[in-house]
């Protein structure tokens, strides 16, 4: 919402300066968005007289002018076609910032001739787009004074942000009323003029809405004007419209725009001679089309309000008039529309048709239902004043809807809700300044809400009114009382777990990234997605049109982007949501890792290797350990999802439950995503890991340290290649669970010297005696059992 300072002062009697007004606007909820202080900006531009203008010796289109600034005469080189001796122009001396060019003038030499300043066009002063020539100031203008001040162009443009509840502040008067209530001045009375009527309206108005939908346009007030003279509106009106960014069109149209901004009352004017018999307010017909004032064709449906005559549609109710029935310069007879339209229907229509207009903006935020007749009077007066002609009596259809309502404010509520201790009398006075009729009752207030405050519905609204006008700077801040002397843990076990995973992974050299929750539907099928229910109806681009079924594709693409920038050894992870459906329970939390390239940079001492399935497995195990998962009890199966390499991937399970997956990515998937180089990944599901039962004590079991030396023994077995290593470890361990404290595989050999399909597996076991030193016989006995167990459970034979 834009207006100017002088415009505001039409409604507000005040001595307050600009800074104070702006500060107050912001504080009461009409936030200052921008300020265009022309008085300040244009102060250096003065009226000067061109005493001589000679052709530049070296340029056909330039003139060397002598300019009298009132103080001195300066030489200025000017390229404007209208620069001539004897004219008065707007002069900017050296050092002036020219807003339209965004430069500060310096003394210059143009083709060998010195130039001291510049004569300006309207566009250089940002007064209009006119840039064909310099401003031709009338001959009677005084030399040496500020041009803007002399021409009355030194108004300040103020732009405020209006929140959607404040339809009443979409008129300058509403803003003035708020400011007056804060004590910044007084609201001037708005005189409602008497309109002399001397002709009869040849046009009628009638409603033809279905009975149950009458409320969508309850009142239409029209007036016929005969023999008006349209044409450009007066300068002051054009100036104001231009200052707020509107283009002056003609007096009739400018009047409607002006009143829309001045009083928040949208209007429309028809060329009465283009209307057939009269106005009909009805629902649009399905498929009915209209060329609107924005010169676009719109196709309406039966949920929309049409303003029509007896034979054709004229406009879209509450939004925009039609081009064919609008007023033009030649218009002689006019029909004025002052009507009411339902906010919701207006919003729906505007959205469906994708039309923005000042009328829609106001109707969908609420237009004063009690300012229809008065609005018509103000507009009529202005039409007669600026365009002449004769007016008819008002032509009315429908009636003013009931808007009267009262809201009770209990006396103690402001204190209870805001902490502000305001006397009841102050509360009452504030509401009255805002237009409420208030009386005291039962220690509180009963307020009749003014017609223009369609947003105020309940007690809390009144509290806000009083508090914001009194000023939130008066809110005394208080500390929240502490709930406990010493704080309690505030994160859930799952949240703690995620934090642990995040920080463990970061310590493993992985960079945490955050990518979008959506991705391209081109790739979702590769990761178990392509779910109709997860495709965005209104995606922002085709790259981001489906909720991700897995974090991996976003990580993979991110890694490749980095690789394309020359980065190597990419190690990324993300902890976040992934989706199998749109219900809350279809959202799962994953901690996903990808690594691309080598395990490290090339180094003289440590030779990096390509990342492989075991790099991914290590990440997965570390992440699960960080989740407090019982990693030694996990089983590994080889049925990983299809986006992994089928022979180099695994699933980590606890019983039947999947804790995570890991592996090298499937080459076909990588190819489709355009990923180059060895790539591995894992996905961990922290919420799948069972939460340990809360322990009653933090005491740990006693530590028993044996004084006896542990003993180590090595074995080598021959076995079929497909037998998993895990089986060896389990079998060996099972030989004596208390004595054998560690089993490790220290060598695997396949190839030369081995029978095809066979491998050699070398195991080391550690025996940790607790009671007595082991004798050779004791050791021999355990070793035999290890061999027996392993050969029995794996089909292996001891290597001779």
């Amino acid at each position: 919402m834009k207006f100017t300072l002088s415009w505001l002062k039409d409604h507000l009697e005040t001595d307050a300066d600009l800074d104070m007004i702006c500060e107050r606007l912001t504080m009461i909820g009409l936030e200052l968005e921008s300020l265009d202080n022309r008085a300040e900006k244009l102060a250096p531009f003065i009226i000067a007289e061109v005493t001589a203008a000679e052709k530049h010796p070296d340029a056909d289109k330039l003139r060397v002018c002598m300019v009298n600034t009132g103080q001195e005469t300066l030489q200025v080189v000017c390229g404007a076609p209208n620069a001539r001796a004897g004219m008065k122009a707007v002069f900017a001396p050296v050092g002036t910032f020219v807003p339209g060019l965004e430069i500060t003038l310096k003394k210059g030499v143009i083709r060998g001739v010195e130039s001291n300043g510049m004569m300006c066009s309207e566009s250089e002063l940002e007064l209009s787009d006119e840039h064909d020539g310099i401003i031709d100031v009338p001959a009677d203008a005084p030399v040496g004074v500020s041009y803007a001040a002399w021409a009355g162009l030194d108004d300040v443009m103020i732009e405020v942000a209006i929140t959607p509840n404040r339809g009443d502040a979409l008129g300058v008067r509403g803003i003035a009323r708020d400011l007056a209530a804060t004590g910044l001045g007084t609201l001037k009375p708005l005189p409602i003029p008497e309109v002399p009527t001397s002709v009869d309206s040849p046009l009628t108005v009638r409603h033809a809405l279905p009975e149950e939908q009458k409320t969508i346009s309850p009142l239409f007030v029209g007036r016929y004007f005969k023999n008006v003279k349209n044409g450009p509106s007066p300068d002051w009106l054009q100036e104001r419209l231009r200052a707020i960014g509107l283009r002056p069109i003609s007096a009739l149209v400018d009047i409607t725009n002006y009143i829309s901004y001045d009083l928040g009352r949208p209007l429309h004017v028809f060329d009465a001679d283009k209307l057939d018999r009269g106005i009909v307010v009805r629902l649009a017909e399905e498929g009915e089309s209209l060329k609107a004032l924005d010169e676009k064709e719109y196709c309406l449906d039966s949920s929309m309000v049409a303003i029509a005559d007896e034979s054709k549609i004229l406009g879209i109710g509450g939004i925009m008039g039609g081009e064919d029935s609008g007023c033009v310069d030649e218009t002689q007879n006019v029909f004025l529309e002052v009507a009411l339209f339902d906010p919701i229907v207006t919003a729906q229509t505007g959205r469906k048709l994708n039309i923005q207009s000042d009328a829609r903006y106001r109707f969908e935020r609420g237009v004063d239902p009690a300012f229809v007749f008065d609005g018509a009077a103000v507009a009529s007066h202005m039409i007669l004043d600026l365009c002449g002609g004769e007016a008819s009596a008002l032509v009315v259809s429908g009636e003013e809807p009931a808007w009267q309502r009262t809201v009770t404010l209990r006396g103690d509520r402001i204190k209870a809700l805001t902490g502000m201790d305001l006397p009841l009398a102050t509360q009452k006075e504030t509401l009255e300044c805002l237009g409420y009729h208030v009386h005291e009752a039962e220690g509180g207030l009963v307020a009749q809400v003014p017609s223009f405050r369609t947003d105020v519905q309940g007690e809390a609204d009144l509290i806000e009114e009083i508090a914001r006008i009194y000023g939130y700077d008066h809110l005394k801040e208080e500390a929240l009382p502490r709930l406990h002397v010493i704080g309690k843990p505030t994160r859930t076990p799952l949240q703690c777990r995620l934090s642990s995973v995040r920080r463990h992974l970061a310590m493993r050299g992985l960079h945490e990234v955050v990518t979008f929750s959506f991705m391209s539907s081109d790739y979702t099928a590769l990761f178990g997605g392509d779910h109709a229910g997860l495709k965005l109806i209104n995606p922002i681009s085709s790259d981001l049109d489906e909720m991700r079924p897995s974090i991996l594709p976003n990580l993979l693409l991110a890694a490749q982007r980095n690789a394309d920038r020359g980065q190597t050894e990419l190690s990324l992870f993300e902890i976040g949501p992934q989706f199998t459906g749109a219900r809350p329970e279809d959202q799962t939390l994953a901690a996903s890792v990808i690594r691309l390239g080598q395990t490290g940079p090339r180094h003289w001492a440590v030779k990096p290797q390509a990342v492989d399935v075991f790099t991914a497995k290590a990440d997965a195990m570390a992440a699960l350990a960080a989740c407090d998962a019982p990693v030694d009890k996990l089983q590994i199966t080889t049925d990983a999802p299809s986006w992994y390499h089928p022979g180099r991937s695994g699933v980590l399970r606890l019983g039947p439950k999947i804790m995570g997956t890991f592996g090298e990515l499937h080459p076909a998937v990588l190819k489709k995503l355009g990923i180059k180089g060895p790539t591995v990944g894992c996905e961990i599901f922290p919420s799948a890991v069972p939460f340990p039962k809360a322990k009653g004590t933090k005491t740990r079991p006693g530590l028993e340290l044996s004084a006896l030396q542990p003993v180590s023994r090595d074995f080598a077995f021959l076995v079929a290649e497909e037998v998993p290593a895990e089986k060896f470890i389990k079998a060996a361990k099972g030989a004596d669970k208390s004595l054998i404290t560690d089993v490790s595989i220290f060598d695997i050999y396949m190839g030369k010297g081995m029978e095809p399909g066979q491998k050699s597996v070398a195991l080391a076991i550690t025996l940790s005696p607790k009671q007595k030193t082991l004798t050779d016989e004791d050791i021999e006995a355990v070793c035999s059992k290890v061999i027996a167990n392993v050969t029995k459970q794996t089909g292996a034979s001891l290597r001779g």
Partner: protein
Amino acid sequence: MTTDLDALRDRLVSAVEEAADLAALEDLRISALGKKGEITAHMKQLGGMDPEQRKQMGQALNQVKAHVAKALDARKAVLENADLEKRLAEERVDVTLPVAPEPVGSVHPISQTIDELTAIFSDMGFTVAEGPDIEDDFHNFDALNIPPEHPARQEHDTFYLPPVTEDQAHMVLRTHTSPVQIRTMMGQKPPIRVICPGRTYRADYDATHSPNFHQVEGLVIDKATHMGHLKGCLIEFCKAYFEVEDVPVRFRASHFPFTEPSAEMDIGYAKRDGQIKIGAGDDWLEIVGCGMVHPKVLRNCGLDPDVYQGFAFGMGIERIAMLKYGIPDLRTFYEADVRWLRHYGFAGLDIPNLYEGLSR
């Protein structure tokens, strides 16, 4: 006789002192003290002497033996030391060679900021609540007093998903974390103090908007918390978060459908050399929207507004992270550029807490 022994001693000692290496020294030792050595030979002659002479001679010989042995030991130490020095000299390596790099990862600024927020609000008794990213109209709009055709709803630039079942309306990607507040109020009895950090979505993508971003909202519901507490809570938060002694704040009126009265809070800042400095200067930056929870919202969640009241606030996580850490561009948070992550990310062990100060 003793002069002979003196000569023997001097000869042996000087031979020891001139021994070139440990092998020569060992030969000397054997030739002097070995079974067939010179001193040993003299010792053997003691048996044929009379007791007086034997005693004298024996003492003298022992002195010679001790003297030579001491010389042998001293020479051995010198030679061994020379050997060690020689070996050490040969073992020299180029210690300027770089060691193998340790892998260094990082925690994303969004996660770090959420941890910082959690540390601060934990101290004020807030717990952390979460909810689903895909919501229905009820939780994201209706319950929050944002009716379908209200202009506020349109301003949300909502992303829509197809309905879950045919008789339902479309689903939405939550446009704020307020639905978590609704779920909290519906699921737990007051007193309530929660913060709700999380992903949020709006169909807007330009220099200052990302279609997926993060918000943190706060909610306090009990029987006595008023707007003065809200202001106090937010001022304390700002001081703690920006780690400054004092922050100038401006608390001003605004409008949100789910709060009444509503406010926005600005913090004072100055811009110097392109860097924003919080807590100085007299320019204002809006960082938080807030207000007292609207009675309709309380009622929608089954709470009686004549009994319960409280406040809610919300702010952008990226925004406050950008302000605190001088990160210039919102979009870079999602680009996963490792150069950016190395620069703006945080060490894994750099866990925010209040006893060490939030950030290093």
